[in-house]
């Protein structure tokens, strides 16, 4: 049973206090979008073995939605952050890079080059 820290109220919440909301950072497609775009928005999801970004709600707590970055294989949590952002914040990406060099997820990735320098 996972423990995630709610970034709003600071509670280290048990999984039973939370409800899972699937993949984070989806872009909504509405009227005017192509069939493929809309199909992908509705149905296509990442299923990574490793780094993943997810939506969670502190449902039996403060009620706020937030995002969590974690490893689906080891369940290591890299951090939780506001749901009100369209991509993972730099400090979360830095934590992941330190622990999983060379990671990537959709179009987000480890931004260090082969020499370990930030590009």
């Amino acid at each position, binding site marked *: 049973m*996972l423990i995630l820290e709610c970034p709003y109220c600071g509670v280290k919440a048990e999984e039973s206090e939370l409800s899972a909301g699937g993949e984070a950072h989806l872009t909504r497609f509405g*009227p005017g979008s192509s*069939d493929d775009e809309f199909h992908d928005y*509705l149905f296509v999801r990442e299923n990574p073995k490793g780094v993943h970004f997810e939506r969670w709600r502190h449902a039996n707590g403060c009620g706020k*939605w937030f995002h969590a970055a974690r490893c689906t294989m*080891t369940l290591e949590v890299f951090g939780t952050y506001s749901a009100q952002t369209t991509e993972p914040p730099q400090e979360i990406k830095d934590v992941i890079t330190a622990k999983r060099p060379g990671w990537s997820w959709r179009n987000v990735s480890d931004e260090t080059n082969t020499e370990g320098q930030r590009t």
Partner: protein
Amino acid sequence: MSTRLATRGRLIDRSKPIEFTFNGTSLRGFEGDTLASALLANDQMLVGRSFKYHRPRGIVAAGSEEPNALVGLGSNRRYEPNQRATTTEIFEGLTATSQNHWPSLEFDVGEINSKLFSRFLSAGFYYKMFMHPKPFWKHVYEPFIRHSAGLGKAPDKELQDADTYEHFYFYCDVLIVGGGVAGLQAAKTAASSGAKVLLIEEKNYWGGRTPVDGGTIEGDDAQDWVTKTVAELEAMENVILRSRCMGAGVYDHGYILGYERLTDHAPDMAGPRHRLWRIRATQTITATGAIERPLSFAGNDVPGVMLAGSMRDYIANWGVLPGQRVVVATNNDDAYRTALALHHAGADVVRVVDAREEGGGKLAEEVRGLGIRIDNGRAIAKVKDGKRVTKVAICPQNGTGGAREEIAADAVAMSGGWSPVVHLWSHCGGKLTWDAEQAHFKPDPLRAPTGADGKAFVVTAGSSSGPMDLKSVMANAAKAGINATQAVGRTAVDAGEIKTSVISEAPMLPVWLMPANADIELRMKTWLDYQNDVKVSDVQLAAQEGYESVEHTKRYTTLGMATDQGKLSNINGLAILADSLGAEIPQVGTTTFRPPYHPISMGAIGGEARGEIFQPLRKTPMYAWHDDNGADWEPVGHWRRPYAYVQDGETVDQAVNREVKNTRENLGLLDASTLGKLIVKGPDAGKFLDMLYTNMMSTLKIGKCRYGLMCSENGFLSDDGVVARIDEDTWLCHTTTGGADHIHAQMEEWLQTEWWDWKVYVTNATEQLAQVAVVGPNARKVLEKLNATAGGGLDLSAEALGFMEWADGKIGGFDARAYRISFSGELSYEIAVPASQGLAFWEALVEAGQEFGAMPYGTECLHILRAEKGFIMIGDETDGTVIPQDLGLHWALSKKKTDYLGKRAHSRSHMADPDRWKLVGLETLDGAVLPDGAYAVGEGVNANGQQNTIGRVTSTYYSANLERGIAMGLVKHGPDRMGEVIDFPGLDGKIYQAKIVDPVFYDKEGEKQNV
């Protein structure tokens, strides 16, 4: 013969005899006995019958690894099947019954299975033998298998468990599972740092097996060291000890389940029977010991064949000698301890059969010195079948089982070496490594289970780490204590080397089959998994048939799938599989270890959540009145709503019909408080509601109401209700009763995660308001009477409050908001008052309404009234696959709005398909009520040869007003087929013929609501 010794038995109190019954026979034991030790003391070798072949089975082990000795315990409300005799402490009046036999344990008809049918019951028999011919499964095979296979009988479903259970939450720095010498040492080390420590032990005593085998720790006799250490730990404020508390499972992020059995040994003691500990530990030390492996020889399941270590447990712990003439079979030195214990307890050790050509070390010398014959390089060829051991055939280990020598014996002690208990380590991802020297899998400390921070959170201690000798066990445990303490950010006192006695042992020899090349006759009698009746020949057959993966072999043969989870059988089975595949054991690997370690009670899992507090019950302010006035309750989510109000002498159906007629003819009162009431407020509230509803809400005038539909993003109808515009930036959204919470949650989700810059607040006011629907021709009269008699100025006339309008004011002294809306087609007001005034308002309406024929009505009447009018109901006409267009609700889909949830989806090709089933009314030709959910059949058949379906019934009722059955349904091209008759085959065999009609059955012009 198995007997009680006059001496020994460190755990029993001979001054406290206890009487219990086994299969109705009264037997005696002592306080401190397990059911297994007490049965053995009474020479009850036969304790059950095996799963498939109904072979006689006896006690094999002394702990929770026992596969055979499962009994039904207690009776009536305290009956529980499949309880292990080895983990059951006896008490006065205990009743146990053996399982899986017919007609009796001693004489079992099913035993012929093993003699006549065993070739049909080989690996994968479910898949092979019983497939053809097809009808045989249902009429021959299944009844046969159900009758003969299976373990204990489930308790009577009508009897409620008499005991109570509870959950308990606990947080600590270091949890130690296992109170043997390793667990005690690890706890002592961890506790020295000041960390908060919890130590749990599944048995009712501390120290594990070490006091049985003796030896010294820090100069003390092992038992004295245990006593002293427990006392030390008990005196520490930062340490909590719990015996009879098993570590059941290790889960993500350091979540551990403990299973405490509080009153199993004393059922009359007050308090809960079991307590489920829900533990969060920063670090967990598993000091879970090791389990001895059986040896695989023919007849290794005959009662009297026992694990060597367990046999000396019975002698030392309970003063029970399981045999008088005993053969000891081994591949290691440890079993010689059993030979010594047997000899010193007075048994005749007739032979030690040691598979090693070179034989044993110092312990073997000691045994030989007592004049006991040791045969090196020999094996047991076969133990003669029967209800107890009578004859043992001995042969060379390197052979096929020939050149036998038969000796008379009444028990066999076997030892195939010891395996660490790695279950808890493995539950949450800890990996194993193969130790070739000891021929076992042990935890690989470099690949530990990791927690939220990516660091290891489980450490193993003692023999569960791999080492089996006392010296290494204690050193390993102290180190585990230091490591775990460090990981929680504290420093333990390092006491340095722990001095113990040392006995050097000769290396063991992996022996996976006895004799090494046993012929098929022997292999078919050589058991790997006792509980599921899996033999060496089954695993070999599976390998031969292409089952290479250990996980597949497990499922195909059922090896390790019984309630003992393969504690004894796993390694032996793996070894046979590896050998059959010509692979190394580590390459074949183990199956997955899953919690719980040992079965835990369903009661403990349920905890306090049973009966009335299984789930919260939501009650409206008028609940008590309904209950006093004949409410026939219906669960609606967590709410209870009256289905109908049944009067004296009425059936529920009659009550419904009376309510249906009365509401149309006079006056009906409905408690509508459960309807969702969400207040949406803010400068962007209108824009927000335009996104959520398919129709336009931002243009709604203050004081007006509008019926709205909500769709999910993929276009399916999700909720409906009437929305009222309260003021410039406030709307009140009614939702369905079941939708209130999730529509509220959905609003929050969109506001927090997509449109977070929109200025809108949402609050769920459902429980703040009581709401009453006042419905029928006399609706206005009763409200005006209230105003006239009790004071109140709210003008409810048709002119002042038109249809689909609302107004605030006083009605009969109550603070009311009246909505002139109708879900019945009658003149109708829904009146909301503060929840605190709800009951008084309801009672005032009932009283004032008497002269107008007022009667309360329930949810069934509500449904029928709306169905008579062709109004849809979310959950009846919709099921998550229905879009508004299917229900003829095009008018509610805004064409002006560029976007709303579901709009894009409605233009997907399947949504625009003209062949979608559409809403129509259905009238049976004979007036009968259509069966709910019935499908209409059309021409032709589908790929499976079934008749094609062309529609289904979504709502169906008897209408007392129309005196006939009415229904709505979704039918292919339905609206274009008015007047056609289609067939609905019922489950009763009757074909219901129904005419497609307009879904509005009553008052088509809608005159009644506009008065």
